[in-house]
């Protein structure tokens, strides 16, 4: 099911059967995107939005000096560029981080949802607001946390988001990101990332190796990253698990 992970384990509640049927019917087609392919380019007009079904995607901004910044990360169930429905062009690129399966939803069909289904419209609005909340937290992470805290915070966030869709068990998850990618998320050089990952391993908080994260002490990792999952709007049980407060 294309929409299986949409709003899964969020405070907004699951989609009703009716809402899910409407959303599934709004999908024009699914596409496979190879890793690194740009799906939406900055400044280009768009008339469809992308629902991520499988894989990881990112939002990228290229700085004037050529450095790339990853300013957003997406996991299955995320409506990656729903804001393009209103904006009609993006201020950043959207690209596949891994091979990804995406569902294409034309804006004309979103328009129909908006006029015909108030409850689903409100849920889609929730998704864009949640997106904004995540962006605010990414700003906080870069402005207030040091290198060790930034990486710990990011790993906690990804674990929480994957927990919500059943792609993490709270202890182990796949993270198909290189150290360069992590550096672009956390504004750190490769050397800095490398050292922090070693420190996290030596402190027995987690091990990041070969696209796989193994969390040894989630509570300690949460404390190290000063992570509070409130901004992810997870349901109570998932939020507790994301902070290591409840067993699997």
């Amino acid at each position, binding site marked *: 099911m294309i929409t299986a992970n949409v709003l899964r384990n969020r405070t907004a509640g699951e989609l009703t059967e009716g809402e899910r049927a409407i959303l599934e019917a709004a999908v024009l087609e699914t596409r496979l995107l190879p890793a690194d392919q740009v799906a939406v380019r900055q400044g280009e007009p768009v008339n469809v939005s992308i629902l991520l079904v499988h894989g990881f995607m990112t939002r990228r901004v290229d700085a004037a000096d050529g450095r790339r910044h990853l300013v957003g990360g997406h996991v299955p169930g995320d409506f990656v560029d729903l804001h393009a429905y209103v904006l009609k062009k993006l201020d950043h690129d959207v690209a596949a981080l891994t091979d990804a399966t995406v569902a294409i939803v034309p804006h004309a069909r979103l328009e129909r949802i908006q006029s015909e289904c108030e409850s689903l419209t409100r849920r889609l609005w929730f998704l864009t607001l949640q997106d904004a909340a995540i962006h605010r937290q990414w700003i906080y992470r*870069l*402005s*207030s*946390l*040091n*290198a*060790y805290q*930034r990486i710990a915070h990011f790993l906690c966030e990804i674990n929480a988001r994957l927990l919500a869709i059943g792609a993490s068990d709270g202890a182990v998850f796949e993270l198909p990101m290189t150290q360069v990618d992590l550096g672009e998320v*956390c*504004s*750190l*050089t490769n*050397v*800095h990332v*490398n*050292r922090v990952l070693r420190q996290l391993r030596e402190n027995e908080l987690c091990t990041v190796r070969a696209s796989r994260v193994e969390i040894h002490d989630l509570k300690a990792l949460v404390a190290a990253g000063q992570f509070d999952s409130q901004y992810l709007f997870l349901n109570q049980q998932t939020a507790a698990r994301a902070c290591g407060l409840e067993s699997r």
Partner: protein
Amino acid sequence: MTRRPAVLKPCEHPGKASAEDGVVLLDGPDGVAVAMTPDAAAQTAESLLRAAAQARASHGPAGNGDQG
């Protein structure tokens, strides 16, 4: 209601510099996380020392003047 601390006051805690793979890493204070070449780090250190001396001179012997 908890009062928030005064904003944007000069930090009283120093950053910590270390060497890793031929690069100087500066962690803190606050959210600082910078990697520099040894030359850039040495020049930054000299610049910081000069600025610290100027700041002390302009704000008396305590040297930790409240900028807020």
